[in-house]
């Protein structure tokens, strides 16, 4: 297996008025293709900042980040947008679907921004929905779907562009335990059968247990790295 994420000495400093707040103080980490990583740690430990940086939503103050052997630590905003579009799929705690738009159109969204023709958009979106078992619900709007179904639409959206990496920020945070188990089963299946790399932030140990590897953050540093 080859390296997908490779960070060395990442730091992130936020300016809050006159005070500098250091959210990350030197994080070096390598994640290989096909890994299922659970990121844990208390609030304010820097795990969200880390996720934002490896998700190319934010840039590090210093340090180096290689995604798929490409240095993305100081790319322009437009280049970062293109990388997010092609290589990364996001799954959020609060689903973050467009509320007045059908499931299908939500899933199509990433394809809209890389110029795919509408026929291909449709085909790929339908097959992504099929993958998460929601093909027959494609014309429902998010408020007509249950929480678990909404999160599966979000996963379909994350998958639609065949990304190399899925970043999930507390994906089960708003779900009951039964739905959480179903969702984790889906993640496990995508990871094993489709060889998709997943990095997932979670607070719950039983959810983290689905991962092959558990990384613990504290005060902006990695304090523990459990590989199975």
């Amino acid at each position: 297996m080859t390296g997908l994420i490779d960070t060395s000495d990442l730091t992130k400093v936020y300016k809050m008025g006159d005070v500098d707040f250091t959210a990350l103080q030197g994080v070096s980490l390598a994640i290989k293709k096909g890994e299922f990583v659970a990121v844990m740690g208390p609030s304010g430990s820097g795990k969200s900042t880390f996720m934002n940086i490896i998700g190319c939503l934010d840039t590090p103050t210093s340090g180096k980040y290689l995604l798929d052997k490409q240095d993305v630590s100081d790319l322009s905003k437009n280049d970062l947008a293109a990388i997010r579009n092609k290589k990364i799929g996001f799954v959020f705690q609060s689903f973050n679907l467009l509320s007045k738009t059908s499931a299908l159109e939500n899933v199509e969204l990433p394809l809209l921004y890389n110029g795919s023709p509408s026929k291909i958009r449709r085909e790929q979106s339908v097959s992504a929905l099929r993958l998460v078992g929601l093909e027959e619900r494609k014309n429902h709007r998010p408020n007509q779907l249950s929480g678990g179904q909404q999160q599966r639409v979000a996963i379909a959206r994350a998958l639609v562009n065949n990304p190399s990496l899925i970043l999930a920020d507390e994906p089960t945070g708003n779900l009951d335990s039964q739905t959480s188990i179903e969702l984790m089963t889906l993640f496990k299946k995508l990871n094993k059968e489709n060889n998709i790399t997943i990095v997932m932030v979670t607070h719950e140990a039983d959810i983290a247990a689905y991962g092959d590897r558990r990384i613990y953050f504290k005060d902006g540093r990695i304090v523990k790295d459990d590989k199975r």
Partner: protein
Amino acid sequence: MNTIATVKIAVNALSINKMRSSLTMLGIIIGVAAVIAMISVGSGARAQISKEIASLGSNLLMVWPGTATSGGLRMGFGTTPTLTSDDAKAIAAEVSSVSFVAPVLNGTAQVVYGNQNWSTIVTGTTSNFFELREWPVVSGKVFTQRDVDGATKVALLGQTVVENLFGNEDPLGNIIRIKKIPFKIVGVLARKGQSPIGQDQDDSIYIPLTTAQKRLFGTRFPGMVRMIITKASSPDMIKNAEADITALLRQRHHIMAGKEDDFSVRNLTEMLSTAEQAAKIMSILLGSIASVSLIVGGIGIMNIMLVSVTERTREIGIRMAVGARARDILMQFLIEAVVLAIIGGGIGIGVGAMGSWLISYFAGWEIDISLFAILLAFGFSAITGIFFGFYPARKASRMAPVECLRYE
């Protein structure tokens, strides 16, 4: 991201908040409608004036007799009989920049036909007059120079006189009495409409000049005329003709250098083009007042778009997370604003056209809905959309994705 998809997204976003979108559009609708109605009314007024100028005949110069001063009392124009038929003949013979000359002597008289009677203006003139005023007959024919030379008792009737004396009867060949003197009707003039000062030009009778001088409005001054109408041979010659006529008449009237003229030459076209100029300024003024409301409408768009950007911060974050570039977000919000403005502009054109029509219907004004006004208003509303939509759209495109996603 392609334009069609962007426009679709914009229309969807606008239809989610129908009430708000339509109220925002209302500003543009009112603005565009006001611009169209104002321009239509303004250019209608100008068209009206141009028509009046045309009805008067072009390149006309009027020569009026001068003022009489009697014991220090100045009496006003036309009080002394300084202009005569011979002056008119001299102008026709000697001033080359003039193509037609028609002396005129008129007065009000009671006209009787059968048991009908009517008071109207009776004008004595020469046959040139009708060419000069570009005023044809609809039946019969214009009296000739021979009628003028022989002071025959023939008359041409205006349409209003025909209606009042004859009703539906054909007046041609009948005899009417003007101040008890019988006149034979040799022709009926075409309808001419109102003069620029609102006079009904069809309420008139025309007879040979000499007949008027000898039989109807005779004074102790033989050959006196009320005024001389002349037509310059071309618009460029108006100034020349004015100077030539002045020089000739000064010479004929033996006026010493340095003394005041005993006549005055007035350029009618100039007066009317001043009126036309005033109408033009008026329509520009009305148009600019109306465009203020378009600007107010534009500010309404900007306001709503700013609110919309704030409300949809999270949506912007989601779009950015899945790969929308700053440009995509900018275009999305800009197109939304432009769609608002263009739909508003389209409806505004309809409302404006209808409003103009209502104005013309109820106020009886002439209006002129020009393609130019429509294109102007439409273009203006699109530009308003771009101009006032740009700032909110740019604001949206510059937001940081992380902060948008965190926004509650």
